[in-house]
Structure formats: C-alpha cells, structure tokens
C-alpha cells in the first residue's frame, strides 16, 4: 500500500534521514521506535508530502482523494472553535461529507463526547489527539500515520488510544505509529521499525524482534527469590520478585526448572530498553 524507498534528508544541522525504507500494509499496525531526534517526525513529514526528501521515493497505491491521514507532532486545531466546528471546517474544505450525522459519527468513532460545545483550547491532550485522529480520518484515507500519539496521555488515555488504533486497523486501514516509548508500541504493533540517527537499525514482526533481543525478565511468585534454579541468572532480588538475565538459555527452560522446583510463577515480564533495540541484531 505504501512503499518508501531509501529516503534521505539533510538539514543545515546534518543528516536527519539516511536511506530509510519502510512499507505499510492494509490492516496492519506498524511501529516506528526511536529516541527523540532520531528522525521519526521528518520521515512522517516526507511520507505525508509536507517535506521533500533529498533522495528516495514514496510509492502509494491508493485511489482515495486523501491516501494518508495523519497527526504529526501535536494535533493542529483551531483553538477558538469547538470540536464539531473544527471537524466541519476540515471536512468542508476537502469536499468530505460534512453533514451532522457524518461528523458526529467521526466524533463517536474516536470516543469524543457529542455534548462538548466549548472551544478546543479547553480540551485535554488526549481529547485533542482524538479530534486530530477524527480529522485525519476525514475523506476515508487508506493509511493513518500518528506521530507520538501517546505523548502527554495518562495510562487510561494510552490504553484507550491503543484500543482505538486496533479498531481502526480492523477496518483495513494501514497504520504507522511512532513513539520513543517501547511498551506502547509493543502492545499495539504487528511490525516494528527501530530508527536511530536517521537509519533503520532493526525491523521485524514485533514479537520476533523482541524475542530475539530480550534476555532480562522480571518474575514474581511466592518466595521466588529463593529458587535455586534462578540463582545463576539473578540480577536483582526482592521479596517475591527477581530480575534475571538468561541471555544464553531460553526463558521457557528457566521457567520449567523453576516450576519443577516447586515454585509458582505468577508473572513473567520481559524487560527491554530502547538502547537494546537500537543495537542491530546482526551486530
């Protein structure tokens, strides 16, 4: 649906993107993970046609008037208009359906209340993000690009936004989400690109990529810190909690030994940092 091939971009400050290639597919959620300043926003601006790349190409297979809907950086809204008026204005300028029913459907789809009549300057960041997504969805784009949509949201807001993104993907929309927070992308994305200093350093199906890189886990269980089978791997231990590093042994084998020893494992949470993901898998 979208193929970006070897995109490069330089500013006076230096090279921001270096031969970046990515692909988006219908109904799939792709994640772009990278530190602040890694080149995520520039890549998104190029994909959406806001910025011209120095080299490389973007191929889009879509028949829609607006192939890509996007929210880049903070959602740009008219602060003196209310949510409905903002949505109506953006619908009218592109000849998208702007009748009350259609617009209220968009607001409902992103979970915004229909009874808020005050200007959007009073809205929380979460509500602005949702309205930004509603505007991005106008004119039924085939793709949706969201730049750091989880920034400034509380945990409830993050959870409901993830749910919304998943719902949109079920409608066969190709979605690309960026973040510098791994947990959010891990929960929502089918495929992950890791970008660092303008280059894609790792990519793959989210779970495969994480499995290949994760070696640190936090286990909880009754008196689990006393399990002999875990001792060779313990990094940190507290009452009922241990953090282990089992780099050369599959986690399933470690868990099996612990269970055979008679300890119950209540949870096993992988710990992975962005820094670990930035190291290329073949390095």
């Amino acid at each position, binding site marked *: 649906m979208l193929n970006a091939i070897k995109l490069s971009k330089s500013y006076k400050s230096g090279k921001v993107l270096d031969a970046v290639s990515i692909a988006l597919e219908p109904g799939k959620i792709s994640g772009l993970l990278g530190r602040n300043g890694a080149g995520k*926003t520039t890549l998104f*601006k190029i994909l*959406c*046609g*806001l*910025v*011209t790349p120095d080299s490389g190409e973007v191929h889009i297979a879509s028949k829609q*008037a*607006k192939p*890509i*809907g*996007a929210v*880049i*950086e*903070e*959602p*740009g*809204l*008219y*602060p*003196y*208009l209310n949510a409905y008026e903002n949505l109506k*204005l*953006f619908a*009218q*300028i*592109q*000849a*998208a359906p702007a009748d009350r029913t259609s617009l209220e459907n968009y607001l409902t789809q992103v979970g915004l209340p229909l009874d808020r009549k005050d200007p959007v300057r009073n809205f929380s960041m979460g509500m602005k993000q949702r309205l*930004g997504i509603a*505007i*991005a969805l*106008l*004119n039924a784009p085939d793709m949706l690009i969201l730049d750091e949509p989880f920034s400034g949201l509380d945990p409830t807001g993050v959870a409901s936004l993830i749910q919304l993104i998943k719902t949109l993907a079920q409608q066969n929309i190709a979605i690309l989400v960026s973040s510098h927070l791994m947990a959010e992308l891990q929960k929502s994305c089918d495929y992950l690109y890791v970008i660092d200093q303008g280059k894609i350093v790792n990519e793959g199906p989210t779970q495969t990529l994480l499995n290949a890189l994760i070696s640190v886990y936090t286990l909880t269980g009754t008196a689990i810190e006393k399990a002999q089978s875990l001792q060779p791997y313990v990094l940190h231990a507290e009452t009922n909690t241990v953090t282990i590093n089992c780099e050369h042994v599959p986690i399933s084998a470690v868990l099996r030994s612990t269970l055979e020893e008679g300890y119950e494992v209540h949870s096993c949470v992988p710990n992975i940092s962005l820094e670990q993901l930035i190291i290329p898998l073949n390095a």
Partner: protein
Amino acid sequence: MMIPLLKAELFKLFRESKTWYAVAAVLLIEFIILIAAYFQGATILELLLDNLRQSFYFEGTLLNGNLLLYIILNSLWFNLPLILMIVSSALITEEYKNGTLKTLMLQAVSKRKLMLAKYLTSAIFTLLMLLLLMASTFVLAYGIFGSGDLVVYLGTLNFFPAEEAFKRILMAFASGTLSMLFFTTVSVTLGILLKEPAKTWIASAFFLILSSLLLKADFGLGSMERFFFAKLTNSWQRFFDYELQLQEILIDNIALTVYTFLVALGGMYLFTKQDVG
C-alpha cells in the same frame, strides 16, 4: 474547491476575536477624531484661517462633513493600513503558530488554492473595512457637521465647492482602497516568508514606514520614478490637487494593482515551493 476554501477562510477570520478588535480600533479612531473635531475643530480652523479671513469671505462653516471625511481619509497613511496588515498577515501566521497549516496540508487541499483563498480573504476583509469606514464616516460626519466647502492644505490651500469635494472624496476612497489592498497583500506575503506573527507585524510596520519615507525620495529615474511602488501608494491624495490629473492617477492605480498581483503571485510561488513543518 475554491469556494469552500474561501468560505472556510472567511469563517475563521470572523470567528477570531482579533478581527473584531481591529474593527473596533478603526471605529474608535474615527469616533475620537469626530469628537475632537466637534469640540476643538472650529477653534483650530479659526486660528489657521485667521489671516485669510482678512482678505477673503467664506460662506458657511469650513468645519463640515467634507473636511471631517478628508481628515478621516488621512488614516490611510498609517493607522488603517497597519491594522489591516496585522489582521491580514494573521491569516497565515496564526496557521503556522497553531500548527493548523500542517493539518490543512494533510488534507486533500491544494497549496496554491489555499494561498489564493487567503489572499482573496485578505482582499475581501480590506474592502469591507474600507466600506465600513467610508459609510460610517459619511453618516456621522454629514449627520453631525453637515455639508460644505472643503479646504485642504497640500503645499498651498485648495478650496473645493461642496459637490466637487464630495466627488473627490469618493474617488479618493476608491483609490485608497487599492493602496490598502497592496499593503495587505504585502503583509500576507511577509507572513509566508517570516511565519511568526510578531516578526511579521514588525516587518509590516517597517514596510509601511519605509514606503512613507521612500515617497519623498528621489532616485533619479526620471519619468519611471512615479512607477516605484512607494510613489503609487499615495495616489488617493492627488485627488485633492487643485488640477485633477485623472488619467495619470488612473495609470498609477493600474500600476499599483499590477504590483499587488505580482506580490500575491510571488507569495503563492514561495508557499508552494516551501516545505511545511
């Protein structure tokens, strides 16, 4: 696609509180001038014309609606264009500031058409403001002070009978509107170049002052000198020369209109070539 864009631009313009502050400022200035004229105008005029009264006989009062209209017309020198430039430049700078330009460009909207809609909105607003100023001044000035002969000092004192004065004031308003359209078009283009509201306001004020300064400058260009933009922006004032050079004023107004179109075309070209964000 153009009509919905134009409608949206006008809707935004008239929903912005700063637009109404601008309207209020223009009307307030007009009101203050009329009040000052009502209480002090006759005394000042007596002082100015005291010597002439010893040699000439004036019929009726010279503090009349036509003189007030001429005084208010003089707000076309600085305060009115400055206010109009601030509002017009905000059509683009506020979009940059709020991030809405990015949102607009992420929709199925052409950059060229969007910018054309902004220039047209600026022009419509300018025309409406001039109409409002003209209509309100006519009503108030004639209502309070009545009609009469007009005396204007432009190096020398020029006197115009009431009917002639009214015609010349009307034509001066029309010509002044073209000057205002030039200034507001420049301010939108400055907004495209500078992007930030405060920087654009300063640049607009600077442009206005520079135009006034260059008005009197002599560049030694001979007959071409009159086509320098700064010399064209005060054509409206030439309707109060005793000998009315209508054809020359018309040519100057056409030249200024050409400048206005060129500035707008340049702005649209720049905007379409610029990255957004």
